[in-house]
């Protein structure tokens, strides 16, 4: 391919050189060009490629009196609880006293929380009486447990964005819910995220 010809043909003999045996040195420049392009691609890819993005979060105003806040209709409420080790649980409406509606889901794969949210959304749309805003009654309450990670919280907030859930709230768990979470965490198999 690329070559440098340093044989230098045709110039006068140096003084006193008996036998000017000029060896032709052909330097192959292919590796150098390869390296050059490799370095170029490296620098192309490292010049500010992916800038970190920002996810907005609006906190509810604590001062607003509870009765002035919109009351969540039980039929449209979905509560998501996060436990340790990437465990996630949910229940619809109010938590029954025997905790029979306390169910578990996963972040990815089968029975994912996304499926749960989508099912709830479809249900709310089907029983809605308002044609202009069929998802008006859908409220998702996100309750992170004491041992869940920041990533879990961000993932669920992301799910709100992905599934276009307009009303959601980030609140603390009740003690009884924390106990339920701890109990279920202990018996459940460790799951991945």
């Amino acid at each position, binding site marked *: *391919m*690329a*070559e*440098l010809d340093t044989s230098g043909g045709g110039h006068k003999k140096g003084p006193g050189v008996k036998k000017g045996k000029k060896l032709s040195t052909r330097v192959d*420049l292919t590796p*150098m*060009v390869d390296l*050059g*392009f490799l*370095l*170029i691609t490296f*620098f*192309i890819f*490292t*010049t*500010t490629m*992916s*800038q*970190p*993005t*920002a*996810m*907005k*979060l*609006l*906190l*509810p*105003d*604590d001062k607003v009196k509870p009765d002035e806040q919109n009351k969540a209709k039980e039929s449209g409420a979905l509560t998501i609880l*996060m436990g340790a080790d990437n465990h996630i649980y949910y229940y619809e409406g109010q938590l029954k006293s025997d905790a029979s509606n306390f169910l578990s889901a996963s972040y990815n794969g089968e029975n994912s929380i*996304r499926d749960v949210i989508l099912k709830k959304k479809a249900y709310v749309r089907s029983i809605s009486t308002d044609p202009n805003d069929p998802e008006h009654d859908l409220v998702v309450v996100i309750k*992170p*447990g*004491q*041992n*869940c*990670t*920041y*990533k*879990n*919280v*961000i*993932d669920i*907030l*992301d799910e709100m*964005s*992905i*599934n*276009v859930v307009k009303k959601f709230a*980030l609140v*603390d768990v009740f003690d009884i819910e924390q106990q339920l979470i701890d109990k279920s965490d202990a018996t459940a198999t460790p799951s991945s995220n």
Partner: protein
Amino acid sequence: MGRAKLPRKSTTIDMTAMCDVAFLLLSFFILTTKFKPSEAIAVTTPSSVSSKVAPNKDFVLVTIDKDGKVFLTIDDKQKRELVANSMNTTKNLGIDVAKFKAASFIGSSFSGLNSFLSISEENRKGDQLPGIPCKDTANNELTVWMQAVNEAYAGSKMDLLLKGDNLSKYPSFKGVLTAFKKNNIQKFQMVTNPENAPAGSELYKRSMSGEKQEN
């Protein structure tokens, strides 16, 4: 009828020109590449589908590392001075204002602040520092810091960012949120890695149909 003599021409192409162009391009990219400053606090942020780019100037950043330690970074040096002065007057901490202004981030409790500032810039590594205490609701020092920051930014827009590590536990996050709520800070943004909307989801369908995202 002569012998069909195909004149053989030499096919070696002189590649020096391409080599020159390659090195020119390389030099261009070397000179225009900006390396990200190595962070003293190592944080792996989660990814999200948000498409808004995080501001990298004039922001106030609260960082939560994987052990739940909280650090505060104020980008604007004038505001740092204002915060240091207000902390000195309200809490009587006796902070060295010049050192505070030069510090790229704050990561200790009020009592340890002067010793924190005396450690040299290179030695301030996130894993060795105690961070600002905020898990205890009775003693949430971050509330006081945010109050000073709020005052410093009174009248102008404050870009508040929260950068948490994937593995940090919820109590530290809650401490930070409590500090914000107590100071009536409703709006803030969380720094995440970019991610595409999952195929088939509603967000994906909306972005495909070209609907404007109000994110």
